[in-house]
């Protein structure tokens, strides 16, 4: 096993070229560089950390086998990987047939990871994020994936359209609709008497 990493100056598509040639260091470098993006897509698509970890592993196994299929002119490596993650996540959802909310796992409590300068404020922030996460997970799949790709992963509309195999206009309209749905859902989940929560939900509208 090699823990050797390639320098950050080597671009993602350069790593893919080396992976095709069997360079393990390039593979490890790409994994460390992009695993968070892939995991995030998988987690926000499936709602289950364990499933998201499986999907992350499957995505990089697919990269190991099919790195040569990447076309640099079509999309960035990040959006290509997110597209693969989206496809694997969809397959898992179709197989499992349902979405589990994150709340039961308790593995990724935001408050634990954050620096607690204002405990009450952080709890409120944690509640808002939890409400937002639940709202995203409750979106229909076609809306959920555009929010995850375009808003969370900050992938361009064109790359998202490539990953989703649809038109850019479709991405735009779905995203618009998804944000409206999110606003309504967050508004319903947060305490209506909490002024800060109302402010967030207004901003989401």
């Amino acid at each position, binding site marked *: 096993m*090699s823990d050797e990493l390639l320098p950050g100056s080597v671009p993602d598509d350069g790593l893919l070229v080396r992976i095709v040639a069997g360079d393990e260091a390039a*593979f490890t470098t790409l994994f460390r560089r992009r*695993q968070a993006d892939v*995991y995030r897509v998988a987690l926000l698509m499936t709602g289950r*950390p364990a499933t998201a*970890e499986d999907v992350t592993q499957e995505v990089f196994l697919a990269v190991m086998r099919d790195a040569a299929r990447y076309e640099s002119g079509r999309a960035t490596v990040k959006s290509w990987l997110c597209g693969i993650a989206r496809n694997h996540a969809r397959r898992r959802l179709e197989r499992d047939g349902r979405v589990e909310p994150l709340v039961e796992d308790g593995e990724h409590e935001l408050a634990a990871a954050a620096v607690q300068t204002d405990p009450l404020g952080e709890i409120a922030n944690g509640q808002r994020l939890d409400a937002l996460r639940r709202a*995203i997970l409750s979106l229909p799949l076609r809306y959920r994936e555009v929010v995850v790709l375009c808003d*969370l992963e900050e992938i361009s509309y064109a790359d998202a359209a490539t990953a989703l195999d649809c038109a850019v206009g479709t991405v735009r309209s779905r995203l618009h609709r998804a944000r409206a749905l999110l606003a309504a859902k967050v508004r319903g989940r947060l305490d209506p008497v909490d002024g800060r929560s109302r402010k967030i939900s207004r901003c*989401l509208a």
Partner: protein
Amino acid sequence: MSSDRDQDEPYASAIRALAGSATIPPPSRVKIERDLQRAFAEYHAERRRDVPRARERGRWRPWLAAAAAVVAMSVGLEVWRASHRVTENHVTTASVRPAVSPPERGGRALAVPAESTPATIPVGAVTTSAGNRNPSRRPAARVVRPAGFVVIPGTAGLPQFESGTIMRIELPVASLPAYGVDISPASDDQPVEADVLVGQDGQARAIRLVTNSSRSSQ
């Protein structure tokens, strides 16, 4: 965020915070990384073992393709031959004779010597050139017994006649001697119709002048 996005800043910051919170736990990340590294090493070791085998298989591929092409061409040739199979092997002197009757042209007769007709013209399937060029709509080749043809001089060295086509052409009378047809010196250069028997190699083999009776039979 891209410039073409119109998100509210609180929404964008909430999304960013959510994105930052969704990270893979370090123990899981390490385990996945180790598993992937092991899978990568095994995958490429397997590929390296497979390359010589693939090369070995690939070495025979051109020969197999060439052999398949030869077989296909042989079958195609055989099918083509079967579709052009000779239905009649020879036209003897009896069917060639009588020699061409010289047509009447302005009161002048064309004399064709009897000795210019061959003893035997081997003939396969002789078809007429008239007809539709579209093979799907073309009727089956018409097999005819050519009669009245005289062998064109100088064709003795050509390959054996197997099959051919009769083509009707117009010739100046003065050129007929070159085709082995004697004419009277008084004949002028007026054109005359003739049927030319063209062999399978595109070479003209025999000629006959068109008479009123043969014109009506066409």
